Structures are given as C-alpha cells and as structure tokens.
C-alpha cells in the first residue's frame, strides 16, 4: 500500500482553507437562534386588574356584574365552574358559550393556595384562549365556608 507523502508545517500553512462550510454552519446557527427567540424569551400574561386580597364584598360586586365565568380550582384537582363541578375537558366548549352571554367577557379564577402554579397558568391560558378579555384573580380565605360563596353547596 502506497504511503501518503508527508507535508511540512510550512506547506500545510500554504494550503488554501475552504471556509464555505464553516460560514454555512455559522449562518444556520444564527438563523436557528433567531427563529427560536420567541420560545426562549419570557413573555407575560397580564393580571393587572386582579382582585387579589379582596374577599366577600368584591365577590358580591362581581356577582352583580355580568361575569358569567367563575372558575374555582381545588387542591384535590376538582374544577368548579359557576358552583358546579365540571370535567376540565369540557371547559373549552363551555367557556366560549358562557362568555358569549357576557358583555365585558371577564372571567374570575380562584384557586386553593396548594394548587400547582403551572396548572393555574394552564387555566388562565385556556380562559384567555377561549375569549376571556380579562381574568380576575381572586384570593380565597381558607377560613370559613361563609367566605367562599362559589364553593359547591
């Protein structure tokens, strides 16, 4: 078998380097990075008009308004929609129909403190995706049943 002739360092330095593939890879990396920016960078969901920290009085006010969606997430995983337990899978069908009856299209979301944050975000996302203009975050007082008017009777 013929042995490849060895070349000196000086000769190797004179060999023209093809930078084409390198520039292709770099360009692809930059393009991929630019395309993935929306999935890397954090964005946000507004909860500006939240009613957090308010209790029965604000609940009563909310009742008088045209809010037709009142969602309560319990720590045990039960989902209560307008005082009725519902299957979470049915919500994407029910929410748009309820919101259609509302002028302001606001929804109230209440959750027990023990509920996992990701799950609450999923429900806020679902409400907004189904047409809720605002999701009002309510805080429940863990104290008495009298202070939890949305709880199932």
């Amino acid at each position, binding site marked *: 078998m013929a042995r490849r002739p060895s070349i000196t360092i000086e000769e190797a330095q004179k060999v023209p380097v093809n930078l084409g593939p390198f520039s292709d890879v770099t360009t692809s990396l930059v393009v991929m990075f630019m395309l993935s920016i929306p999935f890397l960078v954090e964005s946000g969901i507004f909860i500006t008009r*939240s009613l957090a920290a308010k209790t029965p009085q604000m609940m009563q006010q909310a009742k008088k308004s045209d809010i037709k969606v009142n969602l309560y997430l319990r720590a045990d995983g039960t989902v209560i929609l307008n005082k009725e337990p519902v299957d979470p899978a049915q919500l994407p069908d029910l929410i748009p129909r309820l919101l259609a009856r509302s002028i302001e299209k606001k929804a109230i979301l209440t959750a027990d403190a023990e509920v*996992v944050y990701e799950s609450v*975000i999923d429900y806020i*996302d679902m409400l907004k995706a189904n047409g809720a203009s605002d999701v009002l975050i309510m805080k429940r007082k863990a104290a008495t049943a009298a202070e939890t008017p949305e709880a199932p009777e």
Partner: protein
Amino acid sequence: MPMKEEKVEGPDISAVLFPLAGVMILVLATIIGNAQALFTNTSVQLEIPKANVIEADLEQMIPISIDRNGVYYYKDEKLNDVKELTPKVAADQKKYAEEAGDPELEGFQMVVIRGDKSIQWGSVLEAIDAVKRAKCKRVVLAVIKKRG
C-alpha cells in the same frame, strides 16, 4: 538591466480568519446560552410555565422571581420574607416616575412575577398581594410561548 521584481507575500488570509471564526462561534454560543438572562434582567434560573396566549413583551420591567423552594428574589437579591418586596417595588416605581418626569406614572412600570412551574399558587398570590400593596398597576405573570 531590468530589475527583477521581488514578490512580496501578503498575510495568509486563513491565518487571520480561523481565530476570528473561533471567536465568532464562542460569542454566538455565549449569546445563545445566556439569551434568557439577557432578556429578563435577572440571572435567577427557573422553569417558567408555558402558555399559548402571550400578551406582554417584557421590557424595562421589575423582575420578581420565586424559585422551586418558594424563595423570593427581587431582581437578583434573595429576600428573607415576601413583605420585603413592597417597599422595594414602591421605591422603584417612584424612581421610574421621577426619571420620566411625570409623577402620574408612578406605579406604571411593569412588574413581572417569574414563578417556577412547580411552586404552589399561594406563593404567587403572596407576591401579587405584596406588589399590589406597592400600588403597581401593571403586573404580569411570566410565561414562555408554547411550541406548536
């Protein structure tokens, strides 16, 4: 007698381009690796929940982070108690209005609550309450856009 032209060798272009290319790749890798920290004004690393609906681009905001152990961070500063948030946020909002030269803008700087997806909702509610006590009018929960 004609003078023999002396050939002057220029610098080898590949010898210049190779280190440059290496540096470019390193810079690119650093930017990609730190993209999140660059855009969020904080270095607290969290697993942010994902959502389809995106309403706010986070610019010039005050980041409040809650890690998976329920520890609160104001920007990069670790807090011992959630109650420490209120005076800090209020001071920043005042500074924001002063810099803008309009006192009516106090409370309008966006506050972003960045919670790890595994924490309890109660921790986030406490942060919302603390921020609301500082009379913030623009509060946002940080999410990352879902793929697909």
